[in-house]
């Protein structure tokens, strides 16, 4: 499908216009409108008012577009329409700040960028965009009356403010790899900082949002405020982030999502109460269109032995509608793996999602507010996990619980290097992915099944690392991670890794890339610690300490 669009460029002088016109002809680029002698606020408002096409691609005069820009723009539009709905998005760009995570995402060649980005199938929801290239959805922007405030003028912050105006009116913005361009300018940081301090912009931010600080791709902008007010002022303004969240949530609020939490349990341990308590809080934070089920996958214990306990928890957490599944032949394919395989056989809806959480871990209910839009366009989502060193007695909660580590969602990327450090509860999968994995693989062994499943899942599927808290992991005397006898771990490790290698999960390009990278600092430090200098340093420290003590 060919979408109707025009290119607009505001040029610094007529010489630039002449040069660009020459390029347009030479490379048979789409029709371009050239303007000079106006500021960017006026320029954008004129486009929004006068453009007769459905879409307008607005580029800086130092942006080199690909020769096939027409088909790329069409793809960007098609993907955005598919993902957000044609009438729900306002602007697409090629660089900006990702919504919620606030990561900088760029699909651009410029003096700041040295690494080639990977292509994303769907546009990334953006908080704000960089103005080098902006694709305006003229129809939806006109429909919602989006424009830049008439009292603002100049050449800075218009990109951020246009995104703000778009979100205010309920239209989302996105970053699309299809809008990849070459941008010759590194931007003028000093001018941006000076502009952000101007009264006109400060007043705009102050009167539009409750923020004290606003993120932009160039830097954070501090908003001058009277501090003796809490988050809000007298106008009861939302923050920019809340406005974005509201727009995104309303876009996805009618998308039905089914989420199944699978709790693996093999003992009547009261530790599960903490997990259920957090699941109850999680449930309370969910939107009504999210169907939420809790499944207990019970393995390695007889029904007779554990059923009174199961009855007790089902009664106490009746709101969670807990379903219990007893795994009969747990040892056939190892209990931890087998319980997943058996439970997913019982889940009919392949488009539902599965979140595997062990009974002694717990979920972070914060994610409930985001779960609908996070899962709507993604089959695999990894989040952050918080590790706690804990001591337990027989109570429903730990005696002590101390945060010791945060396992970042991005750790999923290091799996291919052999660094296996991402827990099972950090990842939510679409059921059909797990079904396929269990149908196609034997999954021999246990204890490393989490990593094997993740590796098999990400082989053919897109995944998203979201730096939001998903789960809490408990390290305590009784759990498998701390077991003394590691033999069964070693066998599982060897089995899974041999499978991974022989199933070609590590492709040649990835392998060569990691091999070509310089050794990490940690490795260098470890080898340094084996050397003589380190030994003498340690001896010197000990002597120094002894002398100090004697004195």
């Amino acid at each position, binding site marked *: 499908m060919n979408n109707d669009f025009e290119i607009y460029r505001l040029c610094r002088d007529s010489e630039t216009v002449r040069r660009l016109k020459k390029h347009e002809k030479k490379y048979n680029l789409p029709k371009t409108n050239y303007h000079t002698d106006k500021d960017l606020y006026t320029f954008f408002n004129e486009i929004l008012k006068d453009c007769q096409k459905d879409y307008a691609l607005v580029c800086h005069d130092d942006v080199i577009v690909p020769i096939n820009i027409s088909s790329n723009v069409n793809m960007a539009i098609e993907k955005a329409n598919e993902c957000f709905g044609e009438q729900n998005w306002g602007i697409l760009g090629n660089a900006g700040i990702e919504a919620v995570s606030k990561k900088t995402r760029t699909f651009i060649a410029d003096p700041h960028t040295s690494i080639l980005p990977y292509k994303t199938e769907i546009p990334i929801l953006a908080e704000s965009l960089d103005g080098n290239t902006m694709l305006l959805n003229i129809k939806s922007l006109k429909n919602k009356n989006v424009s830049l405030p008439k009292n603002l003028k100049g050449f800075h912050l218009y990109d951020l403010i246009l995104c703000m105006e778009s979100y205010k009116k309920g239209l989302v913005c996105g970053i699309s790899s299809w809008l990849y361009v070459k941008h010759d300018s590194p931007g003028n940081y000093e001018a941006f900082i000076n502009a952000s301090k101007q009264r006109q912009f400060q007043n705009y931010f102050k009167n539009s949002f409750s923020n004290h600080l606003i993120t932009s791709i160039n830097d954070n902008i501090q908003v001058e405020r009277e501090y003796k007010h809490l988050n*809000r002022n007298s106008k009861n303004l939302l923050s920019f982030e809340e406005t974005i969240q509201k727009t995104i949530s309303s876009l996805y609020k009618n998308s039905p999502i089914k989420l199944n939490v699978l709790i693996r349990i093999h003992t009547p341990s009261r530790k599960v109460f*903490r997990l259920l308590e957090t699941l109850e809080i999680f449930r309370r934070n969910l939107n009504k269109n999210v169907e939420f089920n809790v499944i207990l996958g019970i393995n390695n214990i007889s029904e007779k032995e554990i059923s009174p306990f199961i009855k007790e928890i089902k009664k106490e957490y009746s709101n969670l509608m807990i379903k219990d599944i007893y795994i009969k032949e747990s040892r056939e394919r190892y209990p931890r793996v087998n319980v997943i395989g058996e439970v997913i056989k019982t889940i009919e809806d392949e488009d539902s999602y599965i979140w595997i959480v062990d009974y002694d871990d717990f979920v972070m209910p914060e994610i409930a507010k985001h779960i609908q839009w996070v899962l709507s366009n993604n089959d695999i989502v990894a989040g952050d996990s918080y590790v706690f060193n804990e001591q337990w007695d027989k109570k429903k*909660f730990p005696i002590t619980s101390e945060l010791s580590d945060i396992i970042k969602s991005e750790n999923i990327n290091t799996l291919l290097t052999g660094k296996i450090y991402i827990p099972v509860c950090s990842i939510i999968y679409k059921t059909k992915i797990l079904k396929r994995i269990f149908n196609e693989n034997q999954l021999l062994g246990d204890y490393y099944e989490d990593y094997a499943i993740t590796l098999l899942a990400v082989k053919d599927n897109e995944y998203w690392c979201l730096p*939001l808290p998903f789960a809490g992991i408990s390290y305590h005397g009784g759990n498998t991670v701390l077991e003394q006898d590691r033999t069964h771990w070693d066998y599982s490790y060897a089995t899974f890794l041999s499978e991974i290698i022989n199933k070609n999960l590590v492709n040649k390009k990835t392998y060569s890339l990691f091999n070509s990278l310089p050794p990490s600092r940690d490795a260098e430090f470890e080898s340094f610690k084996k050397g003589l200098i380190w030994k003498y340093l340690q001896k010197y420290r000990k002597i120094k300490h002894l002398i100090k003590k004697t004195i």
Partner: protein
Amino acid sequence: MPSKKNLKKLNVFCSTSSTRLNEVNNLLIPSLEKQTYEGEIHLSLLNYEANEKIKEEDIIDSEKLHIRIINPPKPLGFGEAHNYSFNLVKPSKYFLIINSDIYLERDCIKEMIRTFDEDTGLIEVRQLPFQHPKDESHKETFETSWASGCCLLINVEFFKKVGGFDPLYWMYLEDVDLSWKSWINGYKVLQNPKAVAYHFTGLYFRYSPNRYYLEDFWSLRNFFYISYVYWGNKGLRRAKEIVEKIPYYDKEIKSEAYQNFLDLKENNRIKKIRIPTNLENKIHIHGYNKFSKNP
């Protein structure tokens, strides 16, 4: 552990706002409703922002709780808000202050009240999943140097004696100040480890620093304030030295917070408090910020 009391009415004060009613309806009220505490719970919801009134119909119906909505005429800080509710409701013996994002374990209130006696000024809950990394409470006496204000049982007699929360803090560290005043006035501060509350505070999830700008600002400003109140100019100098070493704040916020403290000092008669020597082990500052290691 003190003997069990049989007190029948508990006043609970929650300082909230019209934009946080989701938390009130989805977390706070249900968790109060499921308490095994056998007395009546009277919940006062105070709108600290005072800009958009909280109406009765905004709050879910509750068969178990007696709910009162308080809409003050002007925005109030954290301590001011609880002082306001206190003066209006006039609780007897003790009252509970609680944040709207708290979810209490079902025995929580019963446990707190079980710990209460007349020599106790404050009883705090144990927060999960993030325990406050402060001095651990004493294993037998449950004594602790300071108690968090996010869910705190307060002795009425003590609260009256010290004139409630110091409103000059506006928000953050007023709970530490109240705790230290408790010790200084001869009341204990306890943490009951069996009284558990779930508090999934956003502060630990610092994936976007600007969301916590306000929190950072007030924490810094009040770090200067509390250091000055208890240790005078020497304490202030130390606070400045510590703050300068904090890596994750930029210079601007540090200097703004300091300037704001200087303005506060200039415009108000700050009453300094002398720490009795026998309490120096309880009233002390290790370093800035309860959430990170000392710089």
